[in-house]
């Protein structure tokens, strides 16, 4: 183990470690963050939701976006899987359909970063309480 000899050493060390603790910090106040939910029921998984979720996690990390990616059960849109619900702080949730890795990146680049809506949005027909 390398010694921590100065305040800078400690800061560096902290930065390296922050990522693994990041999701624990974020889970305490998700309402201030972009919340991304990937539907991961049997239908979702069968259509590739797991790869989509991993891609989203990677992309969020790369772009350094304050977001929390969670999985959820079947949202009921089995015909349009994989589906992803994005809730930006202060906005209503938006559900994207037929999401693949490419579309996942598009969601991040266009909707999350620039507020641009993209094709394949499902009309919201439910309320989350």
């Amino acid at each position, binding site marked *: 183990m390398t010694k*921590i000899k100065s*305040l800078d050493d*400690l800061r560096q060390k902290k930065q390296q470690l922050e990522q693994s603790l990041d999701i624990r910090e974020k889970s305490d106040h998700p309402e201030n963050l972009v919340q991304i939910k990937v539907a991961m029921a049997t239908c979702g998984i069968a259509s590739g939701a797991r790869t989509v979720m991993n891609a989203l996690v*990677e992309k969020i990390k790369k772009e350094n976006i304050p977001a929390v990616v969670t*999985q959820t*059960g079947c949202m009921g849109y089995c015909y349009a899987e994989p589906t992803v619900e994005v809730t930006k702080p202060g906005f209503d949730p938006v559900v994207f359909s037929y999401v693949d890795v490419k579309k996942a990146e598009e969601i991040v680049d266009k909707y999350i970063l620039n507020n641009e809506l993209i094709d394949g949005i499902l009309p919201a027909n439910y309320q989350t309480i």
Partner: protein
Amino acid sequence: MYKMQLLVCGGTGCRASASATIVEKLNESLKAHQLTEEAQVVTTGCFGFCEKGPIVKVIPDNTFYTQVKPEDAEEIVAEHILKGRKVSRLLYENPENQEHIADSRHMGFYQKQMRIALRNCGVIDPENIDEYIGRDGYSALAQVVTDLTPEQAIAMVKQSGLRGRGGAGFPTGLKWEITSKFSSDQKYVVCNADEGDPGAFMDRSILEGDPNSIIEAMAICGYCIGATKGLVYIRAEYPLAIKRLEIAIAQAREYGLLGNNIFGSKFSFDMELRYGAGAFVCGEETALIASMEGKRGEPRVKPPFPAESGYMQKPTNVNNVETFANVPVIFLKGPEWYSSIGTEKSKGTKVFALAGKINNVGLIEVPMGITLREIIYEIGGGIKNGKKFKAVQTGGPSGGCLTEAHLDTPIDFDSLVAAGSMMGSGGMIVMDEDDCMVSIAKFYLEFIVEESCGKCTPCRIGNKRMLEILEKITQGKGNMEDLDHLRNLAYVIKDTSLCGLGQSSPNPVLSTLENFYDEYVAHVKDKRCFAKKCKALARYTIDPDVCTGCTICARNCPVEAITGEKREPHFIHQEICIHCGVCYQKCKFNAIIVE
């Protein structure tokens, strides 16, 4: 990078219910489902909700699984981690409307809490110093030793208003300042981890869940008072806390966070453990120091205070575990932030161990100034089995019993003393209508008599005499004079005992005499115990309408006090009955009435 984490409680309580096996099983299941790259299992410290342990919390969606068994591990992984479906049968059920609450932030138990001393308990892996560093660990120490003079640092602790959490509530900054003023070739920082109050376990939980915070705070204290050596006096009955503290000390040494020239400064600090054998009196600082020196754990006359002449006759600063746990936060968030929490004279938060007849038994941390009602009814979820609240005992054997009239008093050091109890280390035992207050006072006195070191006469003999009077009363042999004797004796012990143990030992008796005088009178005059706890005062009779004449009571009565014909109602002869209760236990038809 993991996208999900499973936090499993590794505190003593949950480990006793097989949480270590749960960790194993979770790991096995993750492996079987090839999810080891995506999800990670972390063993953390105590979540506080011990009533519902073992706890498994899934992050980032904050799902709080309660009373998990090892065989549930596979279902959690297969359903929640793989498919995103929460296992609803393991979720916390809101007792008010039987609805499941998945997110711990929405549970009544957590809503009113504010966690400073317990900030990392249930969040980080206590056996991995990296997780502590990742949560700003050791940043306060770095800031103090590189940027501040000891005087500046002490000024910040004073400004924060932090008071000792061990019981008496002495201002921490002032204690540090006094110790810093004495010059000596060697000074010591001592952490008092001899948690002795029955039912209190906050110090253990902090050491088990976040041992590095204590190391960091002790080093800060060392820098402030000019000490290079830290000692933790911990009871040998806390093996898990000892193990985790040892791991943390070894890891801190490897990183150079303990040792010479910490953070490149001129400050050096190292620490070691001293084991106690679990005597209540050793929580008193002079007795603690004597025990650390290898002598009998007996207190001595103060002054000189340990700040002047403590361990090995050197200036010594003794603080309690919870006090230390608050220290790094004061530097990270600033003394103004800290002093904005709490009441005028008691700043910050206090950890309480909720126990007794309450729905949510566990460890809670609340801002000073919260009321007992909020703690008992909102956090604690009210009284078990819908019974009626009777009293709450705070401060352990040194504290007192508070009644319904005190429920809306804001709690802080001074208001509790004014109400005839004390903060103590934060034990809080809730009692319902089935508890006999005379028996409760007797219980605490039995504890004191057992734990009194015997050095001074008032405590050694006085408490013994008080106990004898209480025994007399509970056996129905007391008279009204005994109550006066009891009160006089209590004041003498309070005024003349050598140390804090003796001075506060009559508190349970005095506060019950004050608040439940009628109950004492009922025991003495009417020879009745309304709570039916004092067996000698119970009156057993047979309900002739219910009795079937099965003869089981008569056959089991050891003194042949029951007579009656077969298939005819039986009768208990009160002049022979010795109130043993055997008939009550044996009767299959609930025909025995206890009054």
